[in-house]
């Protein structure tokens, strides 16, 4: 599995807060956010290139890219490392604009001549097009010419853009992207109270704010702490093979100055996709960093991380031809809005009316914004494995419930268990003590030798390196030979937890995937396709989304 390619840059940072002075922070690269280009005018090009799939195939595709490389300051989040915008990428560049500010998008058609005209549709906006030639749905750019679209976004939210010319073929070939409209006004609720505290805590643990804005919409219910953009699409490799063959044939024909050359006529039915992608990549490629150099034409990843309690904005778009039931393990998602339309209660504009979903169906052309979070509330046991009798001060952190029952007070803001669900604080899950985690709970785990460990298993039932090391390796044993000690990179069994190391991350991993399970395969290979692992990380792990 290529997930092992993930770089683990390990840094050690000493925390100032006295309660966690003993804890060492180990930073692994987490990468993600919703990266894109923030501007008011964009110069795009449509070109052909090959996209990479994890079975080793390079698939001939068409996509939008940047006609000229944007200035470094145009890439957001600003802290992104080594961003790029090549002349072709799938999905196309994520265009980040602001509500009420006019936008212009110039599209130059640099597709192979045989591909004919192309264009962009911006559903949900009133678009004026200048230049180009009249097409069925909009003004189109003929080969090697430019068309310019202008519009003023009137409402915030996430939307799709895609080709409006011979769409059955061009969208399949990769001509789609996302446009994110940031709200003009940020509600006060999103910059005060818990929302502000969450930013403070990020800072206390040495993290950077990677949001595009503090709110998705101008609503006090649309605040968020982190965000991810997922675009779902499929590839039927036969269509791409045929397109390439015909493009080459047409080019050869024209090169030979044959008087009559065939037109492009690629059948797009029957449709038989074999690749199922999120942000243009199949698992495990989607968990490699944004702007990873091995994917020059697929710069965006899908590798969400979050801390307990963070409100995480999911921007989800169906860009392919099929619907996909995208199942978020770990909790429900509150749908805020569809295609930039906030779904409000009929009786109270400040109350949300979007559904709560554990499976968010993606629909072709439809974008939705939703909020997800994970807190561990209701587990009925303490996922941090706190132990009031431990000699480890981190094992004895306090938990003082706020009005909602979470540990969010000022004192908690520099504690590892910020946002812990206090009702289960110290509550044991296991009958027997497990290392330095107290017993007295309801269940007995089987002998570890009859279990198979997953690559993302954190090493124990508990969250974070401190709890995991206490549970598995730090009990002082007078008779042990050799003596077990707290390993810096994890300890005693389990082994093989390579993607979520017990010593540095030990997060709770959750699979986010298409639940039409056939689609979590890559051209007949499992695992693959529309799948990624979401990590809920303890505060010991710095989430760094700079690439």
């Amino acid at each position, binding site marked *: 599995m290529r997930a092992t390619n993930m770089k683990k840059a390990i840094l050690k940072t000493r925390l100032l807060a006295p309660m966690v002075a003993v804890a060492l922070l180990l930073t692994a690269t987490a990468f993600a956010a919703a990266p894109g280009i923030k501007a008011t005018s964009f110069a795009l090009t449509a070109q052909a290139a090959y996209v990479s799939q994890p079975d080793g195939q390079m698939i001939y595709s068409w996509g939008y890219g940047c006609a000229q490389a944007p200035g470094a300051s145009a890439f957001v989040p600003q802290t992104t490392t080594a961003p790029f915008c090549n002349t072709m990428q799938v999905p196309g560049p994520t265009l980040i604009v602001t509500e009420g500010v006019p936008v212009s998008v110039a599209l130059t058609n640099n597709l192979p001549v045989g591909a004919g005209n192309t264009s962009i549709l911006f559903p949900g906006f009133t678009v004026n097009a200048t230049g180009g030639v009249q097409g069925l749905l909009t003004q189109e750019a003929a080969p090697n010419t430019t068309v310019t679209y202008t519009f003023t976004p009137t409402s915030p939210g996430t939307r799709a853009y895609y080709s409006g010319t011979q769409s059955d073929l061009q969208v399949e070939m990769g001509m789609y992207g996302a446009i994110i409209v940031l709200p003009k006004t940020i509600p006060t609720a999103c910059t005060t109270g818990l929302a502000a505290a969450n930013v403070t805590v990020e800072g206390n643990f040495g993290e950077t704010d990677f949001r595009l804005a503090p709110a998705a919409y101008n609503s006090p219910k649309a605040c968020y702490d982190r965000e991810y953009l997922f675009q779902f699409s499929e590839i039927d490799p036969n269509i791409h093979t045929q397109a390439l063959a015909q493009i080459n044939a047409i080019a050869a024909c024209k090169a030979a100055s044959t008087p009559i050359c065939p037109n492009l006529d690629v059948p797009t039915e029957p449709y*038989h996709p*074999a690749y199922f992608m999120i942000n243009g990549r199949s698992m495990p490629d989607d968990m490699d960093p944004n702007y990873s150099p091995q994917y020059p034409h697929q710069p965006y990843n899908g590798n969400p991380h979050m801390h307990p309690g963070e409100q995480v904005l999911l921007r989800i778009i169906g860009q392919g031809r099929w*619907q996909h*039931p995208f*199942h978020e*393990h*770990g909790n*429900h998602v509150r749908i805020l809005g569809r295609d930039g339309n906030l779904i409000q*209660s*009929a009786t*109270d504009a400040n109350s*949300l009316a979007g*559904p*709560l*979903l554990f*499976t968010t*169906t993606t629909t072709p052309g439809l974008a939705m914004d939703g*909020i997800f979070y994970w807190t*561990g*509330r*209701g587990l*009925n046991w303490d996922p941090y494995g706190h132990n*009031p*009798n431990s000699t480890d001060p981190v094992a004895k952190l306090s938990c003082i419930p706020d009005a*909602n029952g979470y540990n969010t007070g000022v004192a908690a803001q520099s504690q590892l268990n910020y946002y812990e669900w206090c*009702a289960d604080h*110290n509550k044991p*899950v296991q*009958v*027997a003590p497990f290392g330095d985690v*107290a017993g*007295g709970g*309801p*269940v*007995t785990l*089987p*002998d570890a*030798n*009859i*279990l*198979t*460990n*997953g690559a*993302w298993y954190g090493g124990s039932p508990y969250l974070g390196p401190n709890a995991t090391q206490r549970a598995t390796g730090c009990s002082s044993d007078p*008779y042990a030979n050799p003596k077990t000690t707290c390993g810096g990179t994890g300890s005693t069994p389990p*082994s*093989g937890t390579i993607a979520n190391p017990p010593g540095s991350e030990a997060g*709770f991993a*959750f*699979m986010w995937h298409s639940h*039409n*399970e*056939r689609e979590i*395969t890559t051209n*007949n*290979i*499992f*695992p693959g396709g529309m799948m990624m*692992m979401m990590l*809920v990380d303890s505060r010991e792990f710095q989430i760094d989304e700079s690439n």
Partner: protein
Amino acid sequence: MALNCARLSDKQDINARPRVFACASSAVAQERDPEYGFFAGSHLPTPSLQPSPKVQKALTAPPGSEGDRTVMKRAHQVWLPILLVCLVTVAANAQSFRVQCPTSTITHPQALHDNNSEPAYSGPTVYTACTPGQTLPDGSTCSAWGRYVSSKVNGAIKCQQISGGDGYATMADGTQTYMFSFGPLSGLAKIASGQPGTDFPSEFNTLYSGANPLQPGDPATTNGATDSPYSPGNLATFSFNGAVGLANDIANAVSIYDISESGHVVTVVGNAPLGVAIGQKVTIAGQDTTGYNGTFTVTAVNVPNPFFAANLAFRYSDPTTGLAEVLESTSATASIRAGIDGHVETRPILDVGVMNGNIPAPLMAIDEDDEFFLTLTNVGMIMRPDLFEQHTVHFHGYPNASSFYDGVPDASVAINIGGSFTYYYLAPDAGTYFWHCHITPPEHLQMGMVGQIYVRPRQDRYSGDLYAGLQAQEGDLRTACNSGDILCSNPLPLVKTGKSGPGLYAYNDGDGSTQYDVEYPIQIHGFDPNFHFVGMTFNPEGFTDMKDKYFLLNGRSYPDTVTSGPMFTQTVDGSMHYSQPLPAIINIPAGKRALLRISDLDVTEYQTLASLGIPMTVVGYNAKLLRDQAGNNMYYNTNSITLGGGESLDVILDASDTSKYPSGSVFYLYTPNLDHLSNDAENFGGLMTEVHIN
């Protein structure tokens, strides 16, 4: 190539490899491996170490003596003995099969309520602070939690055991289809009669007391069934709902050579192996060990020590510290008592669990606030002994799940063949959830490892004004629907209806709007017969070409959907099994309301189910009440619903108008995906069932 990739990625753990090889080669290798030192400490009764008579027969049967049987059967004759021997070996060495169903926990102390029924709801549970180690009013010890439940205990304890393995089901065109599947290993009688197999502790912790031992295929084989032609007999004559395999543990006592304490941890070195397991109770008694005497829970076994072999030593924690070491005591003993402690015998588990797959997997139902102990016992897949496949349970939709109990093998642990793993859940918010195996999902789900679970609301346990009842629930922060929680699903209703309980409700609605009289869990699924055939024949299945040809409601296609009672299938071991115990017919008493808990675990495409004649009212979606944050019900009437794999939805069929829906009328639920109204080659049947007004 594809499958190799899959298998490698699923089995990266090196722990799995020696087990695979040890199992395939010999048990002796395992005994010698210091990693598997528990053999010497095992005190399994000897019968479970023996291959069953059936196995011996299979082993000694002359090859080719039954040439008139199918190819399938010959394959089975080759592999069944090998795998069964393998299973017995593993189970014996590791004492790995085990069930858990405590009668009292810190959340549900027995002293307040016996946990064998649901207590009425009268408000949030009351907690009181205590000091860890302190003796509580009921005589138990305050846990590290530092709190205890002092009154208004809510919910109870529920337990269930399921097998993970394989089996066969009968499709509506008569085809027998091979499955990877779960089967019941508790609540057998309830499952066979279409009920949830979930037990209270008093039901689960019951020893089987029938005159004859449980047989392969039970209860399909001994409930008065007759052989030829097969008749399933009278379900009522088989009433066992306890955990299959449960047996009294064997008493044992050893004299103590050395007992010492470090902090709260006591290490005991006996003069012989006691054969104790982690979690078992051990009693220390002796004239010179008075400080140590008492009964404790074992926390570690196979403890290296300076005196004897590790398997002679074990550990537990006690409340005291500073006890002096007692060496070579003349009177001290450590003993374990006979009794039900989760110890199971292997033989009945294999007899009942092997080839006993159900579609859908055993039905589960719990009540909000319950603690649910779900034991998955991996009995292996007889027809695919090449796979050594783990299985897991993914409780789909469980809010704020821990990844440990989420069942995703990549993110957690998965139980190997020959072992049991107990999943632990506090019943979440009421709603229609479902569950499935999460190993290689496109394969294991397509092959049939899908089931249903739903959570009944607190409101069912509440009498009085429903609005006031929901207000009382707001006092429990865990389920409170305050404005700060964007994922809260059932705020107080905007309109007070003045309705009162008791009654049955889909959700904690506070207005009675989700009231129903009868409920039907309906699971949509699909089978691709080509994939199942390839899956049975040791070949790698292709995923891209997967195409369902059987469209199933509760594992049945029309007209089997309306057949009452369990459907049965003869498997390749010759025994009859209840393969599809759950009918999909909807029977509504005239003038009443039915709740359909519809879930979809199809792995290939979206499915639509339409109602012909009686409108559907959708009240819940993805296990959440359809209500906006301001308290407006967002229910809608429709004549069809569409679900993708991994979605659920609650529909009420309201037949309260007896002039429109008189007794005797019949309506249909069917799919307008008209090509799905077929059973493979038969242009008839498929995703369809009937609604009868009785």
